[in-house]
């Protein structure tokens, strides 16, 4: 991250983020149309399900296939597992130590009460892990997902055992919201246009129409008409903007703002009790939104399990045809868009992946510009620490690292 200061004012803030999906796009060309779920799952160890699901939706759209409602429900359940895992990791091991004044989760765990908090986070995360293992076949890079559905549908008895774990996790998730509600949040707000999938009547996770707080609504197939990615000189990551409008923000706070009215009653009550209003424009409060989303994901998983019948068949054959398909899902970090063109033999001729982190980059830089401007009296070490916190609000892939920021300040 580079900051240029002139005459006591921030003149420029640039964030350089390394971006891997371009390699995968090239790697996908010439592969069979059945392969992207397995290949793209390797892009991210924390959100492989989102990559798999966006890939499946896009390829199924290209081939004119729509999976059955029970298969779609099983996908949504798997997605809940990923949200629980990813959010619990971020809340407890990365984000909460910032608010509690610890350098890392390790330092937090060394304190008397901190140990119990880290244990609670790991236990909550493990519930998500259990969903991933049962429905996805394993916890990392799930192997049970295929274009058209699943290789194997879990038995009802297996689901019953999973529900036992989730009922315990629901209490942990509710405790997490109440705990995070007590943090002190810096008074900082943004005015970015926020963008997320919406599925009226239901909190969007596994599919939806793209919508924004500025009133935009469009189908995933129109994504590239509305979202423009462009090179910027200072970063290998492309910057996304809405055509004719500018920067925007995707992720938990955008989802909450656009779909908060469709949270389940228990998640809605938790959000209200935590003081979250109808929208969330303070990025530091994203930890609270993630905690509410964990409550929702656990609750939603229990609802899906309660009515679960193993889908039969558990997958549809998806014969290829020459066409282009688009898919978008809500990864834990925001909207994840995939587009594939395949030929009549089922070989991929082009692929495009737009991950949430690159969509948010312009908004993160804008936040940092204003954030740094109020903190120019800090020395570089203090400023680095606070900027890391500000970036961590957005949970970009780079924030997996506890100390990731290489800050240079040119003070003129």
């Amino acid at each position, binding site marked *: 991250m580079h900051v240029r200061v002139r005459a006591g004012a921030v003149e420029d803030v640039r964030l350089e983020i390394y971006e891997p999906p371009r390699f995968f796009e090239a790697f996908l060309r010439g592969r069979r149309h059945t392969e992207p779920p397995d290949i793209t799952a390797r*892009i991210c*160890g924390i959100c492989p399900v989102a990559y798999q699901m966006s890939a499946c939706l896009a390829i199924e759209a290209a081939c004119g296939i729509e999976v059955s409602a029970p298969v779609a429900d099983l996908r949504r359940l798997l997605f809940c597992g990923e949200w629980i895992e990813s959010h619990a*990791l971020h809340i407890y*091991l990365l984000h909460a130590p910032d608010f509690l004044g610890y350098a890392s989760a390790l330092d937090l*765990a060394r304190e008397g009460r901190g140990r119990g908090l880290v244990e609670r986070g790991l236990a909550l995360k493990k519930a998500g892990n259990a969903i991933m293992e049962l429905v996805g076949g*394993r916890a*990392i890079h799930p192997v049970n997902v295929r274009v058209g559905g699943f290789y194997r549908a879990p038995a009802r008895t297996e689901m019953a055992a999973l529900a036992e774990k989730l009922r315990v996790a629901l209490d942990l998730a509710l405790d997490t919201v109440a705990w995070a509600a007590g943090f002190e949040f810096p008074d900082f707000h943004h005015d970015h246009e926020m963008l997320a999938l919406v599925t009226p009547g239901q909190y969007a996770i596994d599919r939806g129409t793209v919508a924004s707080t500025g009133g935009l609504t469009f189908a995933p197939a129109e994504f590239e008409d509305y979202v423009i990615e462009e090179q910027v000189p200072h970063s290998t990551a492309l910057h996304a903007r809405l055509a004719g409008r500018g920067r925007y923000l995707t992720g938990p706070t955008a989802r909450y703002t656009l779909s908060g009215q469709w949270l389940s009653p228990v998640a809605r009550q938790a959000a209200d009790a935590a003081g979250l209003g109808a929208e969330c424009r303070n990025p530091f409060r994203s930890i609270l939104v993630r905690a509410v989303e964990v409550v929702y994901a656990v609750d939603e998983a229990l609802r899906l399990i309660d009515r679960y019948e193993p889908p039969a068949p558990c997958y549809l054959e998806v014969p290829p045809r020459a066409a282009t398909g688009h898919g978008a899902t809500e990864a834990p970090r925001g909207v994840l868009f995939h587009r594939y063109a395949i030929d009549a033999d089922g070989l991929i001729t082009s692929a495009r992946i737009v991950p949430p982190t690159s969509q948010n980059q312009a908004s993160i830089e804008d936040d940092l510009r204003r954030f740094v401007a109020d903190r120019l009296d800090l020395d570089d070490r203090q400023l680095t620490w606070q900027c890391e916190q500000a970036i961590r609000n957005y949970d970009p892939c780079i924030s*997996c*690292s*506890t100390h990731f920021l290489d800050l240079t300040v040119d003070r003129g």
Partner: protein
Amino acid sequence: MTGQDSPGQRTVVVGVGNEFRRDDGAGPAVIARLRALQPGDASLSGVTLALSDGEPGRMIDLWEGTRLAVVIDAVRDSRMPPGHLYQLAVDALTGVADGAASSHGIGLGDTVELARVLGRLPARLTVLAVAGRDFGLGTGLTAEVAAAVGELVEQVREIVRR
């Protein structure tokens, strides 16, 4: 594949890494070789062979309650030539974190320390590491690291026999 012994008697071998990040795939490559050997190798009987992306919660879940955990990972170490092998007992791991080449930033050293603080270390933990050369995007190990996979497999077999 999963060990059938009671908790406390189990042995787990964990390959850490991502085979789409060149030499970061060394750990998974060792696990693949061990899986091929396991059916006919008495020393590997009942040993759990697992893959991990290094994420701390799942790592701790994999090794908690085991008699022995062997973790295989690739590391960046500019002081050593690619393919150089390391064998570290748990007490020697403090400070390894910065050298871990995981695609995510919470290093193995921090994970071990976190498990120690939480009282969730295995009874015995050995880390086998190999110095990688290329951690960029792409599949396939560089020649030096590929050449070390056989020796890593032999070291695992020797350790689990003890």
